[in-house]
């Protein structure tokens, strides 16, 4: 699964630690999601979408 997390984060000038704090997850989680090593669960994907105020499919897409 691909995602635009890194781009969206950069647009807001947030560090991985900033985003991790907002989502209440570890910085390792953000890094793993951004680099495609880990696909978040549906609840976490919803939280990410809510944080960026965007639909999930605008952030995540199939390979």
């Amino acid at each position, binding site marked *: 699964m691909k995602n635009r997390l890194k781009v969206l984060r950069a647009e807001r000038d947030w560090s991985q630690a900033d985003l991790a*704090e907002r989502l*209440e*997850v*570890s910085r390792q*989680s953000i890094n793993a*999601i951004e680099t495609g090593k880990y696909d*978040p*669960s549906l609840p*976490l994907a919803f939280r990410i979408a809510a944080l960026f105020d965007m639909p999930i499919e605008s952030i995540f897409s199939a390979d």
Partner: protein
Amino acid sequence: MAGIKNPAARRYTLRLFVLMAAYVLLLIFSKWMFRHGYGEGAVAYALAVLPALPIIGVFWAVMRLLVEQNDEYLRMLLVRQCLFATGFALAITTIREWLQNFDMIPPGDGGFGAAFLWFVGLGLGALFNRLTMGDAGWGGGCR
């Protein structure tokens, strides 16, 4: 321990310290009791089992960490680590058992039992995570 931000990891570390301290104390106590002739009858069984209890406690602590870790990525890393450890311990003990079945090596485990192998496996599991995922597992700096 103050540097560990993740609450589940902090609780795990505290539990581990307490259980390891209990292990050392109970081991010394049991050995002392046997050496001074108190290890007889049913008491001997109880004394022999005493040091095993904190080791079982460490298994419990690791499983509690799995339950209490609310960061799904770190939990996934720990699951992989535990599976690696279980596979490693089972593989080594099975090989050892069959070597013993054919009298290739002497009976017994030389003090390196299943628990020891599982803990070694946890360490190797962290290395496996590091090599394949880029993260060893729960880190002191994580939330």
